């Protein structure tokens, strides 16, 4: 097996090539080291080679935390495989550490015997001290459990680009390309896609383009020539369903899904949004595509973004807003107005760690209560969640379909993990997507009073749009009389309207497909999950199924309402395990609705589940464990953490 890179090969060196089913690589360094770029390039190249991929970018909230500190470490993990994969991998096979802080924070993820590539130039006194090392770990024998390759990346990069008219800083900035080149060689990946990227990105700055190209090739050649690295790995193509693929991140898929939904319903797309991590890139993506009849309104705040979305919906557009938990909190009042005025729109919450500002760049699933319950009054809203980056495309369309069918605002939950993570997306043909029909009432007959709150069989009211003669009407946040829409304070009418609004949401069960199960229809354990934990749960269930266990996976798309047949499904299993990245929010809902004593596997660390964690809990439940992770906190024997990490006091958020 040989590499496909167009490089001069040294015939003198014969290195062995090992073929692997899959591998996981993590690039980590300072947040200014270009690790996200390295990871993205490696991902795209692997995808182009036909591997299945799953990625996990992990970066700090600070744009530039103090250089070399633990707080400033940025990482990007790529799992690539010749088989179907759903997660970015529990452990890392090869770790690239650009500085001591990156090593200190990421070494725990590297498997025993894994490859460790460290930029030895960065392991000097100051860097070591910042990372909390008393001795240089590259030299003190503490890394014997790994296949350590110390590479003087800074010096080697400088040597490669030395002749160019660039500042020292600019030269050193090419280091990530050197690291990429080395890892590209290690995993037998071609350089062409990255060379094309360099050409596109830096074409207008030929010196920089040349420097990056030289650094990339220097890294590749280094791998090829240096004797210490004697094995190259090859991961063959995966067997994916036939079709055309591209690698997509969740936020782009949301943007594409919304754009598709607008066109499928013959509507202008209006996005009212305020920048917030990790949702901003949806706003940015849509702002690029104005020629698709997309209007993006960057509002003065989250409240205005939501209020303008309500206004645009009233005026007849496909109105949407995107945000994250703290932003949704601010939008809540206007979301209530949307419920009261019964206007269709899509509200996307890319969940992040909370409460308050919380962990802006980290993932969590703790906004489920907020989505279902988080408004004043009896204020039901349909809630669905996307399960993976590519699934965001379908989920966005489904959200809009339900919104117009029922004349309701719909909440779509994603999370930081799937928003920034990528996977191969089998690109659909637009013509194959299901149309989303929208109807508006025709002009009213002269002298006939228009009744804005009449209803069809789904209890949806007519979407009468300004500009139509004879349909002039007034709506608002005050309670309405059914049928006429006039302000009405009658006790009986209020209860009737509360019931109408709740029934509208409940009736959605009639338009969502029966719940799919992965595994036998009955058995010992049902793993019930929702949202971005799909990959870890699916993989974990497949693992225990392979051991012959009677375990089934049930992944919910709709959280409100829950599918019609879910109650029956739950009864057919001895134990229900609900893994969630929160304290047990779906578990509470399931327990309340079905009176079933579900078990919770809960993790609130700003990180996704590893497959191993879920497998471990399934096995424990099979063996009789009925405890939930954070149950009975009233009797918790609190102890302060034994080790309180030394951190700079002025960290932002």
């Amino acid at each position: 097996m040989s590499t496909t890179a167009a490089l001069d090969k040294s015939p003198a060196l014969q290195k062995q090539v090992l073929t692997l089913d899959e591998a996981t690589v993590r690039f980590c360094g300072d947040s200014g080291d270009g690790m996200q770029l390295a990871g993205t390039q490696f991902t795209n190249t692997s995808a182009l080679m036909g591997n299945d991929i799953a990625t996990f970018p992990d970066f700090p909230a600070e744009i530039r935390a103090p250089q070399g500190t633990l707080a400033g470490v940025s990482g990007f993990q790529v799992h690539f495989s010749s088989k179907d994969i759903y997660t970015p991998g529990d452990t890392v096979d090869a770790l690239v550490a650009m500085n001591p802080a990156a090593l200190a924070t990421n070494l725990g993820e590297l498997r025993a015997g894994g490859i460790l590539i460290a930029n030895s130039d960065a392991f000097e006194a100051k860097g070591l001290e910042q990372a909390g090392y008393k001795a240089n770990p590259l030299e003190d024998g503490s890394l014997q459990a790994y296949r350590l390759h110390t590479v003087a990346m800074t010096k080697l990069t400088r040597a490669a680009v030395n002749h160019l008219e660039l500042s020292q800083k600019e030269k050193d900035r090419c280091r990530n390309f050197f690291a990429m080149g080395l890892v590209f060689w290690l995993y037998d990946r071609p350089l062409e896609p990255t060379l094309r990227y360099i050409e596109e990105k830096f074409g207008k700055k030929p010196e920089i383009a040349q420097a990056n190209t030289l650094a990339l090739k220097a890294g590749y050649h280094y791998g090829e020539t240096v004797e210490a690295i004697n094995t190259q790995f090859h991961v063959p193509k995966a067997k994916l369903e036939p079709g055309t693929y591209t690698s997509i991140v969740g936020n782009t898929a949301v943007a594409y899904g919304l754009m598709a939904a607008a066109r499928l319903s013959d509507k202008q797309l209006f996005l009212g949004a305020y920048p917030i991590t990790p949702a901003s890139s949806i706003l940015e993506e849509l702002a690029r595509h104005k020629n698709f009849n997309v209007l993006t309104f960057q509002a003065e705040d989250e409240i205005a973004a939501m209020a303008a979305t309500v206004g645009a919906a009233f005026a007849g557009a496909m109105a949407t807003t995107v945000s994250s938990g703290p932003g949704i909190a601010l939008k809540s009042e206007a979301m209530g107005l949307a419920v009261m005025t019964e206007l269709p729109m899509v509200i996307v919450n890319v969940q992040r760690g909370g409460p308050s500002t919380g962990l802006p760049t980290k993932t969590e699933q703790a906004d489920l209560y907020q989505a279902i319950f988080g408004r004043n009054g009896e204020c039901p809203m349909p809630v669905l969640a996307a399960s993976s980056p590519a699934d965001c495309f379908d989920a966005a369309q489904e959200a809009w379909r339900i919104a117009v069918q029922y004349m309701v605002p719909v909440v779509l939950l994603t999370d930081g993990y799937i928003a920034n993570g990528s996977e191969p997306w089998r690109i659909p043909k637009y013509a194959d997507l299901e149309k989303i029909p929208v109807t508006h009432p025709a002009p009213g007959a002269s002298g006939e009073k228009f009744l804005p709150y009449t209803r069809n069989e789904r209890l949806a009211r007519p979407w009468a749009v300004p500009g139509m003669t004879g349909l002039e009407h007034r709506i608002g946040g005050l309670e309405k009389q059914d049928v006429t829409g006039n302000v009405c304070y009658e006790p009986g009418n209020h209860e009737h309207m509360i019931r109408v609004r709740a029934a509208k949401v409940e009736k959605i069960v009639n338009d969502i497909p029966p719940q799919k199960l992965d595994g036998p229809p009955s058995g010992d354990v049902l793993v019930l999950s929702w949202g971005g934990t799909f990959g870890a749960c699916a993989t974990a269930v497949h693992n225990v199924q392979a051991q012959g266990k009677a375990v089934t996976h049930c992944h919910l798309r709709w959280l409100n309402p829950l599918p019609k047949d879910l109650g029956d499904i739950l009864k057919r299993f001895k134990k229900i395990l609900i893994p969630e990245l929160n304290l047990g929010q779906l578990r509470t809902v399931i327990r309340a609705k079905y009176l079933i004593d579900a078990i919770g596997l809960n993790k609130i660390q700003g990180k996704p589940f590893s497959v191993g964690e879920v497998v471990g809990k399934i096995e424990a439940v099979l063996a009789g464990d009925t405890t939930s992770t954070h149950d009975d906190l009233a009797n918790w024997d609190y102890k302060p953490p034994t080790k309180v990490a030394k951190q700079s006091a002025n960290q932002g958020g």
Partner: protein
Amino acid sequence: MSVDVTLPVLKPTDFASDQDVRWCPGCGDYAILAQMKKIMPTLNIPREKIVFVSGIGCSSRFPYYMNTYGMHSIHGRAPAVATGIKSVRPDLNVWVITGDGDALSIGGNHLMHTIRRNLDINIVLFNNRIYGLTKGQYSPTSPLGKKTKSSPMGAIDNPLHPLSLAIGCEATFVARSIDTEIKHLGEVLMRAAKHAGTSFVEVYQNCNVFNDGAWAYAKDRDTKAETTLELIHNKPLIFGKNRDKGIRLNGMNPEVVDLGKGISEDDLLFHDEKATEPSLAYLLSRMRHVDGFPEPIGVFRAVDRPRYDVAINEQVEVATKERGVGDLDKLFNSGDVWQVA
């Protein structure tokens, strides 16, 4: 009155909805509603193209009483709701009806940003210097020392002056009128409706239940000639029962002078509503009765500036012209793609 032949001729009563008006008897809001209904048929705009948006407060019930499209939204957010409406439907004639609490307190941020964007909408602020709907707490325009239920020892917040704020945000149309000056009010609303850009109109409005007489000095037949000054474009600032007083600039400061005694009209400040720089309009908005000045009414400023509702749609047109109508299949396949057979 010029009426497009294709439009039915409407009367003010055609703009009355079937809802009973529920403001307190004697409220200044009635006069504003009556003037609005009166100017509507003269605007040459089909009724179905008109939208009234409001927030929360007494004034915000306004949309329910107009037989047009309307939304009674939530507290302070009407400018943002209107922004959404006008952005996607620039063909609509959009009005925001608000009050001093709604616009300046809870909704201050939206007001500021809507004005600076200069969407072609009309904002009418009913200023009664009190919270009426919540039954009598002080508002952001209540004077210092104002004793109310929530300020029994007197308000200690320095009041906001709506027009100063609007001019600070570089509003392109700024005007003031008084609920009882119905002819003037009608003319100002008409000018606001015709202005292309955000029109901001403050109306001195009496709350006869919780703050009766707050504007007595400016409304009273006996005092108003001395306490108000009608602004007319290109005319000197003259006021007084005998029109014998004027406003002269002394350096950067206005001063009240008596005409005659060596001072002629030519020495006075001439009003220029078209001035590009908002400084003079701002100076006029700072003239207060309490400081011995007449308070100007009329149009302070009326200038042209690009409009957000036009620009946001122009970008779509330009993008479409340059790149063609977006092709989703092309977009989806625009990155690095690979085939699996």
